[in-house]
């Protein structure tokens, strides 16, 4: 996500580190770098101007000059400012960042945005989330314009088991919206998500059409769907949609790419509306809540360890963890356990998404090809071992290696590599056993809490 920007800021603050006291010109230099970094991250020019001004006034004061670790002080100031610009992390703003349901159902949610921003996919993701919460969502296909748009929503609906109200291409979207709500009332669907056609914010006729849909369907929430890759124009787009429709919030899509997502800052600051969700993949369940402090953390190269831990908690059960700990303690970590671990990691989603969340790792893995298929190969090799071999790797001799390679469609050198990695892993785990590793993690989280 924001890796590239965090790299930049990281290198700036590295320069600041170890200099003792900060001179004013050091800050000016850092501000120049921050300005370029933010501009390269596609934060709007004017937003950047305001931002660096604020930082400068705060940084050139005593706060920084008197402090013992000036680099960290600047990091904290930038972090706080980024955070507050994107909506803040306190509870009040947190509760603002969610979808409000209306007291008398159905709650109508209207999705708007430019062409190709991801409205249809996001609509399906939202609906699936509601269904998971025990609600009864209905999707309505108001994009009667783009070829096969209705079919697209219908197909996503049938994949997720969510009903779709769609009529024919060319029908009046206002009418379709009204009919969808009537259907929801009659059949007891408590949420109606209106997937409207993509349109340019300067297209007067189509913007008028949105006015009409809004007036007819009286949505409780209007969500602007925006692409994380959007450039300087993000402010114009967000402002136009917000001025016209008074949107309630924003969904930022395609966050699983490497766009630095400066649009998040631009949109938040120009509309004052919260970013409620981020889209992180094409699978229908990849919609996540937006956390400004995590995002700011990513910007500053601190990674997104909180999301990682949450993901791990979702896919790992406590009993397994206790079991694993015991095994590691007794130095009994076998290939069977390794296979279980791989299965669990795979449950957490694409590997590159996971690695990107680890602090400081973003830089290392960039460019290195992270291939989920490597897991499949390792799994295949483990599967080709006998139970005895899995429990005691020491018995794997030349002819066994040959058999394993043959059975898994790999080569003997692949098997050798796996064995080597396994032995290394065991060594590392011993380190954790002694408790030193745990201390290190504690240090790290303590450091993060400092911000």
């Amino acid at each position, binding site marked *: 996500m924001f890796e590239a920007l965090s790299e930049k800021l990281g290198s700036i603050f590295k320069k600041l580190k170890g200099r003792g006291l900060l001179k004013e010109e050091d800050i000016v230099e850092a501000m120049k770098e921050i*300005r*370029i970094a933010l*501009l*390269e*991250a*596609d934060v*709007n*020019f004017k937003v950047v101007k305001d931002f660096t001004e604020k930082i400068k006034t705060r940084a050139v004061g005593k706060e920084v000059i008197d402090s013992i670790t000036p680099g960290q002080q600047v990091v904290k100031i930038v972090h706080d400012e980024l955070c507050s610009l994107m909506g803040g992390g306190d509870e009040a703003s947190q509760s603002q960042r969610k979808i409000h349901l209306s007291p008398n159902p159905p709650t109508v949610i209207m999705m708007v945005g*430019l*062409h*190709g*921003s*991801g409205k249809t996919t996001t609509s399906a993701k939202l609906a699936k989330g509601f269904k998971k919460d025990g609600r009864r969502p209905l999707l309505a296909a108001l994009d009667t314009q*783009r*070829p*096969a*748009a209705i*079919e*697209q*929503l*219908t*197909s*996503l609906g049938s*994949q997720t088991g969510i009903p779709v109200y769609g009529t024919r291409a060319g029908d009046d979207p206002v009418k379709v919206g009204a009919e969808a709500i009537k259907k929801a009332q009659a059949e007891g669907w408590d949420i109606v998500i209106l997937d409207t056609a993509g349109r*340019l*914010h*300067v297209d007067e006729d189509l913007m008028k059409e949105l006015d009409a849909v809004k007036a007819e369907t009286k949505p409780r929430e209007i969500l602007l769907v925006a*692409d994380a*890759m*959007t*450039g*300087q*124009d*993000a402010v*114009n*787009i967000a402002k136009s949609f917000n001025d016209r429709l008074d949107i309630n919030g924003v969904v930022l899509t*395609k966050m*699983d*790419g*490497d*766009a*630095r997502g*400066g*649009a998040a800052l631009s949109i938040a600051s120009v509309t004052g509306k919260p970013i409620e969700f981020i889209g992180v993949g*094409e699978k229908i369940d990849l919609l996540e809540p937006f956390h400004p402090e995590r995002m700011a953390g990513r910007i500053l190269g601190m990674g997104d360890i909180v999301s990682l831990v949450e993901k791990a908690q979702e896919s790992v059960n406590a009993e397994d963890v206790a079991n694993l700990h015991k095994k590691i303690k007794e130095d009994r970590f076998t290939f069977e356990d390794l296979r279980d671990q791989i299965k669990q990691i795979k449950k957490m989603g*694409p590997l*590159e998404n996971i690695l990107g969340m680890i602090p400081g790792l973003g830089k290392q893995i960039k460019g290195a*090809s*992270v*291939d*989920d*298929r490597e897991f499949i190969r390792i799994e295949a090799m483990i599967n080709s071992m006998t139970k005895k071999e899995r429990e005691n790797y020491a018995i794997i001799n030349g002819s066994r290696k040959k058999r394993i390679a043959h059975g898994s469609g790999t080569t003997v050198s692949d098997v050798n590599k796996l064995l080597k990695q396994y032995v290394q892993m065991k060594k590392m785990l011993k380190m954790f056993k002694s408790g030193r590793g745990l201390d290190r993690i504690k240090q790290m989280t303590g450091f993060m809490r400092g911000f």
Partner: protein
Amino acid sequence: MGFFDRLKQGLLKTRKSIVEKAEALFLGRTVDEGLLDELEEILIMADVGPRASSDIIHALKERFKKGDISDSNALKIALKEEIRKSVEDGSGIKVTIERPYVILAVGVNGVGKTTTIGKLASRFTKEGLKVILAAGDTFRAAAIEQLEIWSERAGAQIVKHKSGADPAAVAYDAIVSAKARGADVVIIDTAGRLHTKVNLMEELKKIKRVVSKELPFAPHEVLLVVDATSGQNVIHQAKIFGEAAGVTGIALTKLDGTAKGGIVVAIKRELDIPVKLIGVGEGVEDLRDFNAEEFVEALFG
């Protein structure tokens, strides 16, 4: 309406903001560093990017110091020159003598690949060429149906498999059937993919491999479709798609909004990939060959 008018109309809002700003800026001003800084701001706001903008302004500053630029009018002309230098060589798409002429369209999600292909197909069939579309986006829901509607509109044939099929197999079948039916042009649609997805970029390489195995020198054109609304990330996109698929040109879509598409200036400068097509509206005739001269003229009036 001629090309120039339509482009101008499509770029009107763009033109308005840049030109008005630039005009107001130039009017009765003496050329100094302050004016140049403000000019840099305009370029950055057009998504040219901080680095390319700074390079362009730097070049202007040099000429100013040398005494080349004396008044604000000369500065305006010099600015146009600098930008034109950065976008030159966009030549549009020419179907050469080779048959079938194969075009592979790639890009991230939601940039307008399928729509661009549909319009391009219409253009070719109007020229009397026999066109086959390959429905290579087997991933996104209803993508095949979408391309099918376009093929009907354009009077082109379509080769498709079931949703979820191997896109390389679709591309292969399209080439084989184009050879058998004596088609002039094959346009291969692909699923939108973020350039950061290693597996999907591998899939793209495979499509390309399969195509060139069946037909040497194909694909003749690999078009990266780029959304003009996008910012600096497009440079990463162009670089990585370029490495995976050998991008030969860019189709810049959605230029009819307020986005300025200045990113193509940075891409040409950094990666030397030219813009070949631009999309300035919803109509079939709104997909145009890119022309640097007219582009800059329309931009700066």
